Every structure is written in structure tokens, then in C-alpha cells.
């Protein structure tokens, strides 16, 4: 690899500044991107990584600063300008049209599209590029039938075919299984060899050390430092990211008791899919007091449905659900809630909060019966506040009670939901993607909250797609694929590759 210092950069950002109401997202950021390099942008959520790259892609306009392409200042006002400067970006939430084929999706994006399409020609171009870089995908397949990993390949192909020379990937590994991550890094490596510049936005340190050539760390909108991979170590990066050492997670021994009666038991649960959802088939599950049962899986394999069945949102067509040995199959959510079931959903804004109500009002919702006074004519806000404050002290984070839920960032919203659900010591906690959207410190606090609950004797159903987190916390680990459990392990008796393959269905064996 040539030493980047000897060459002139392909793109340079100088003094990029961008503020949003109340936040300075980017504060005079300088950044050089060279061809033939993988440049990692590392930082916590809210450090300004995505904002910076969205400015480069023309999605936002910088308040100040300039962008230079091969030394010449250019103005990028829209994604269209970015594309003519040969800059392409793959967003966190992939932007493909599900009802179109791969080829159609790519054709839409081609700069020199003819009036009459020649599908064969487009197919050929796709096949050529995909062979060259190991991005195998069938051009005639419908996008709706592709896995997330394959969709990501299509997004990358789209950029390559539209002649981009700089590829920006926003948290590309978030939705991938471990072996898919490795495949992706292989692809990126090939691209680098052919002179492409790649910017990788991420907050995962391991990945950065694995594949990046240079690493720029952002912290609260400023560049905290840029390192070559050879100079970088995990400690150095943590120090740059947080300024101080993180207090680690204190994992206490599980108090799991095999012989105890399960808190939650599902026997042969089967559901009927709603819309584009997944059908659960033959779900058997036990959650005992004092254990964390991890459910691994690529999202969209029945996680949402599993939560909804346990909570009582959807009815099951077959099977039974027991809570404390009491048959509560197809009983209302309210009945489950009153028995001490806490629920932290995958999407706190859509599934757990009322956007236009204040945080405090939102906090009252699962417990309205508890705080109603005079038969319901008044609500005891004071004792609600006291209860929440107690939980805040326990968990070590807090939220502004009088903010409107809609105005909170994703992380704060998640904190609100965690605080709410942990109040009143629930016996069973369903936590779905607990740490999605949280920065590292809050993620540690949230996981600590689960461990505290386990110590207290609560049973926890912990759904995640972050395998590291699952291996760290779970006492038992189940793998969900296509609406079935396809594997059950003790975390100590397996490894992320075995689980990863099961998650993506490349090795299916039915359990039970």
C-alpha cells in the first residue's frame, strides 16, 4: 500500500461546520480521503459521522467550510452533484424498491439511462461487475426476496455501475451476520486494490482494526484524531472516542435455578402472519427466574412476532402461553402488563411512545391504574415522578420529564422506555434490540440494568442481532430463523460463526 502522505488526496474537507437547532453537529472538521484506501470514521452515536458524510453526499449543506475534489473546490448542493463528482453513499436503511428486480433497481440509478431499456445489456453489466468483485447476485431476482446482506450488495453494485469512485458506507455491518461481515470486507478489499476510496462509518472498534487503512475518530463534532492502522490499538481508540476510560460492565453470576418453575412458558406457539410479517411455527420457550434468554437472529425472522405473542398483541392459532403457570394464551396485553411484564420494543418511537405527549405522560401509560386517584379523576404525577427518579438512581441515567417525546433523540427515547419498563421491578422483561441507537456509555448502563434485574430474580427474554452482546449477557442462547427456533446453546459451548450460520439459514437444523 502506498503511503497516503506522499499523494494528494482525492477529496478534502476543510473546516466543515454544521449546526442543527441546539446541536453543533460538525465543528470545523478537516478530513482527507485518498484513493485506494479504506478510511474508517469512528465515533459514538451523535459524534457527527453521519452528518459529515451526508454533507459530502449533498444531503445536508454545510454552514461553513469547503469541499475540494483533487485540490479544486467544488460545491455539492444535492446528491445529484455528489454523483457527478463520483461520490456514492449506501445509507443505513437501504433504499431499494422491494417490488422491483435487482436490475430494475440498478437501472433506475444509472446516469446514462436510455429511453428504451435494454434489460439484457443491464444484466450483462451487472454480471460483469459482480463477478469482478465477488458480489454475486441474480439481476432478475426481486429485491423483496433478497436477504439484507444481498440487498446491501445490490446497493454497492448500484454505486459501482454508476461510476462512483468514492463509496461511503454508513454502518454497513449493523445488519450482517459475522460471516457476511467478512465477505463484505473481502469485497471492500478488492475495491481498494482497484483504486476506489471507501469511507466506512462505524462505531465498532474491532471492524475498524480489521479492515481500515486509516481511522479518523470524531468526538462531539470534532476530529479527535486520525491514526494509521499500524499505529492504532483498541485502547488508543477508546481514549480518543470517550476522552476517558469507560466504566466496564459488571456481570454478576446468574442466579438461575434449573429446577424452578418457569416464569414464562410457550408451548408449540403458532401464529398467522399479518401482511409482510413472519409466521411463527412450533415455538417452545421457557424463561426462568434469574436468567437471560438470548434470541439471536437477523431482524425480520420473527422477532417482532415473538414479542407480540408474548405480550398478547397477536393471537396464536395454536399452542399455549403460561405466565407463572397460569394459562394466559390470547389474553389481553393489559392482563400481561398487570402481572409484571415489561417490554422494551425494537422501535421506541413507533411501538412504545406517544409522540406528542411529554416524557412524564408517556411514563405513566403502562401504569395508569397504579397512579389513578379518586377513581380515575386525577393522576398522581408526584408519586410517578418519585418512582421514576428511584429507577433513574438505580440505572444511572435520566431523561427530562417535560420534553415532548417526539423531540427526543433515538437514544433518549430508548432511555425513557428503559426507565419506564424497569420501574416497579417487572418479573418478566422482554427486551428487543435494547441497545440499538444507544451510545456506548448508555448501552453499558442499559445492559447493566438487565443484569440488575436478573440479580433481582427477573426472567429476561433478550432479543438482539448483536452477537457480541448476546454472548456477553445470555445464560441460554436461541437462534430464530424464519419464524422457528433453529438452535439452542449455552454461550460457552458455541461460537459466533456457528450461530451466524444458523441466523442466515445457511445451516438449518430443527431443534425439538
Amino acid at each position, binding site marked *: 500500500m502506498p503511503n497516503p502522505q506522499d499523494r494528494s488526496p482525492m477529496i478534502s474537507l476543510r473546516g466543515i461546520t454544521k449546526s442543527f437547532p441546539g446541536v453543533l453537529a460538525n465543528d470545523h472538521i478537516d478530513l482527507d480521503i485518498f484513493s485506494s484506501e479504506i478510511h474508517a470514521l469512528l465515533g459514538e452515536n451523535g459524534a457527527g459521522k453521519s452528518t459529515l458524510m451526508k454533507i459530502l453526499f449533498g444531503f445536508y449543506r454545510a454552514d461553513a467550510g469547503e469541499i475540494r475534489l483533487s485540490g479544486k473546490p467544488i460545491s455539492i448542493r444535492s446528491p445529484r452533484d455528489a454523483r457527478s463528482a463520483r461520490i456514492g453513499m449506501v445509507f443505513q436503511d437501504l433504499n431499494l424498491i422491494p417490488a422491483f428486480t435487482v436490475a430494475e433497481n440498478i437501472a433506475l440509478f444509472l446516469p446514462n439511462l436510455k429511453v428504451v431499456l435494454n434489460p439484457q445489456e443491464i444484466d450483462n453489466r451487472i454480471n460483469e461487475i459482480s463477478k469482478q468483485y465477488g458480489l454475486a447476485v441474480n439481476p432478475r431476482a426481486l429485491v423483496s426476496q433478497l436477504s439484507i446482506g444481498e440487498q446491501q450488495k445490490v446497493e454497492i453494485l448500484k454505486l459501482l455501475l454508476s461510476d462512483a469512485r468514492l463509496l461511503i458506507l454508513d454502518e454497513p455491518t449493523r445488519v450482517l451476520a459475522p460471516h457476511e461481515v467478512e465477505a463484505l470486507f473481502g469485497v471492500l478489499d478488492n475495491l481498494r486494490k482497484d483504486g476506489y476510496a471507501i469511507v466506512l462509518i462505524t462505531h465498532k472498534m474491532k471492524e475498524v482494526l480489521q479492515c481500515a487503512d486509516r481511522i479518523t475518530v470524531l468526538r462531539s463534532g470534532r476530529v479527535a484524531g486520525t491514526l494509521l492502522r499500524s499505529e492504532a490499538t483498541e485502547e488508543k481508540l477508546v481514549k480518543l472516542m470517550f476522552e476517558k476510560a469507560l466504566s466496564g460492565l459488571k456481570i454478576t453470576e446468574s442466579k438461575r435455578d434449573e429446577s424452578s418453575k418457569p416464569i414464562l412458558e410457550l408451548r408449540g406457539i403458532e401464529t398467522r402472519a399479518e401482511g409482510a410479517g413472519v409466521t411463527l411455527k412450533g415455538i417452545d420457550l421457557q424463561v426462568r427466574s434469574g436468567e437471560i434468554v438470548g434470541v439471536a437472529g437477523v431482524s425480520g425472522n420473527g422477532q417482532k412476532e415473538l414479542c407480540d405473542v408474548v405480550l398478547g398483541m397477536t393471537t396464536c392459532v395454536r399452542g399455549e402461553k403460561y405466565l407463572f403457570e397460569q394459562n394466559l394464551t390470547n389474553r389481553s396485553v*393489559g392482563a400481561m402488563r398487570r402481572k409484571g411484564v415489561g417490554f422494551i420494543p425494537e422501535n421506541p418511537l413507533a411501538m412504545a411512545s406517544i409522540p406528542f405527549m411529554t416524557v412524564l405522560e408517556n411514563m405513566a*401509560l403502562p401504569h395508569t391504574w397504579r397512579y389513578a386517584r379518586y377513581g380515575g379523576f386525577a393522576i398522581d404525577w408526584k408519586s410517578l415522578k418519585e418512582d421514576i427518579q428511584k429507577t433513574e438512581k438505580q440505572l444511572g441515567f435520566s431523561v427530562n420529564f417535560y420534553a415532548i417525546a417526539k423531540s427526543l433523540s433515538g437514544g433518549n427515547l430508548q432511555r425513557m422506555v428503559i426507565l419506564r419498563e424497569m420501574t416497579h421491578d417487572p418479573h418478566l422483561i422482554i427486551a428487543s434490540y435494547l441497545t440499538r441507537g444507544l451510545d456506548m456509555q448508555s448501552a453499558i448502563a442499559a445492559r447493566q440494568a438487565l443484569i440488575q434485574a436478573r440479580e433481582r430474580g427477573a426472567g429476561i427474554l433478550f432479543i438482539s442481532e448483536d452477537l457480541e452482546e448476546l454472548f456477553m449477557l445470555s445464560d441460554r442462547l436461541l437462534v430464530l430463523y424464519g419464524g422457528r427456533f433453529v438452535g439452542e446453546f449455552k454461550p460457552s459451548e458455541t461460537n459466533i460463526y456457528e450461530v451466524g450460520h444458523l441466523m442466515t439459514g445457511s445451516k438449518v437444523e430443527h431443534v425439538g
Partner: protein
Amino acid sequence: MSARTFLRIAVSNTLVKNIARYVMMMLLALLLFGIILLATGKDPFQSYRDMFGATFGSAYGFSEVLVAMIPMLITALAVALPSRVGLINVGGEGQLYIGAAFATWGALTFKDQPAWVLLPLMALLGMIGGALWAFIPGYLKSIGLVNETITTLLMNSIAPKIVGFLIFGFWHSPMDTVKTENFVSAARLPTFFNTRVHLGFVIALVLLALFWIIMKYTRWGLEMRAIGGNPQAARRNGIPLKGYLIVIMCLGGAIAGLAGMSHVSGFYGVLILNFSMGLGFMGFLICWLAGGDPIGIFLMSFVVAIITTGGNFLQLTQGLPYAVINILLALALFVVLASPKFFEGKKA
């Protein structure tokens, strides 16, 4: 808090903003209507003089405005309450008819009872009638079968036919086939100060206040706002969604039924075929223009009542057809709907 900030808060308060908005709206509507009057060869200034003379010029004229407001206030509330849980109740008209029919049955059957028994009984019957009529769409909605907007709207065409059947078949007076005999005085809501303003006005105001208090302070208000804000999240928090949908729809129907009772008992004193002529629809319009807000409902009803009573008078003095009222009303509605932000100052 300094005096100035207090003043600023007081001025930015909804009430003042609302009043300013309705005044602006009226002025613009009157300007447009003036052009239409000119085009038809009438004198707009004389017309407006007549109109406002008829409504603000005398105590009696003003009382007539209040009379016209009563059914508007109550039927608007019958829309506002369900709207808080996301239900669109277009069925105020039908619920009002059925409520009126139930109340009339009470008035005709128990005419020997004293007023203090008969009136509450009629009110209760009216509410039951409206609630039953609203239960059908409410239940169908809650089991996810049919959208309540469609069912309530269609059921509006059925209700007056049922009332007609009852009048023609059983209740018509010996003299007249299109109405019942006049209610006994015990079945009439008391009126105030020699005007036609009846107790319904007080009932309407109490209901509006109750609505505001319940939404703001009670457990049910909180849960209803939650359902209106995000039904799925509300359900996941253990709030019984189906139960609320049915109960609130029935309550909305009950309120519309009460409007029917107050109109036959307080205004007509008799049940006449097709007596409503769109009161329920007017309530729907008023509620949506006011954004379901109680103060807005009051102000909007006031504006609409001025137009209808003043417009009635214009028919007499200027020889204008009845349709002009609808034109003026339509202009007012158009102005409101065109750009609500326009009337809220430049900050939007």
C-alpha cells in the same frame, strides 16, 4: 416571571389567538360575499347592516344566535370526543335522529310525569338511542371489520327513515301526518328570560367543560390521548384499545342523541319529520374546523350561528334566496380551510 413575559404568554394564549383568527376569517368571508352581493345587484352594506342588526342589534336577535348555537355545540362535541381516540364520527346526524326518537317516545308515553322525572328520563333515553346507533359502527370498527367513517356516514341515511316510519305509523297527531302531537309542558326544557334560549345551552357548556377537564386531568383522558397519538404503542402499554373504541364511539353517539333530545324538547317541542336538516353535519364541520378544541368549538359555533341566523333575516329584507346562507357559509369554511397558518401570524 416579569410582567412583560406574563403579558406575552397571555397574548399568545390559545383563546386570544383563536378569537383573532375567527375575526379575520369572518372579515375575509364577508368581503368575498360582498362581491357576490354586488354582482347580483344587491347593496352589500345594507345587507350587512340588516344581518348584524338582526343578530347584534337587539337582545332578542342575539338570543336567537345562542339558540342556533345549541345543537351545533353538542353535535360538535359528539365528533370531538371520538376524534380524540382517532375515530371519525360522521354519524352525528343519524345519532341525533335516533336520540330524538327515543326521547320523543319518552315524552309521549310518560306525559303524566312531572318535569323533574320526565326531562332526565328523556335525556337518558336520547343518550341511549344515540349510543345504540353508534354502537354498530363502533363494534364493527373494533373488530377490524369496517371503517367507522363509512358506516357512520351511511347510517345517516337510515335514521331519518326510521323516524319517519315511527311518525307516519304510530306517533303522528290527529291533525297532521308529518309530526307528533305537541309535547306536554313537562316534556319541554325550560327557557330563559322570555327568549327561545333553553336549558340545552347550559347542558352544552357543561359538557364542553367536562370534556376539557376529562381530557386534561383524568386517567381516561390520558389513555384516550395515548390511543389517539399512537394506537399500537397504547395497546402495547396495556391500554384496552377495543374497549375504548366501542365505549367512546357509544359516548359520542350518546352526546349526539342528547343533542336530538334537546332540540325536540327545547326548540320544537314536537318531533317533526326531517327536523334536523343537517345539524349533525354542521357539528362535524365545526368540530374539524376547530380542531376538536372546546374553545374553538364554542367560537366556531358562534360564527356559524351568526351566519345562519343573520342569513335567514337577509331572505326577508333583501329578498335573497335561501342558498345565499350556504354561499356565505361555504366562503367562511373555505377561508378557514384555505390556510389556517395565515391567520396565526407570520411565525409559522
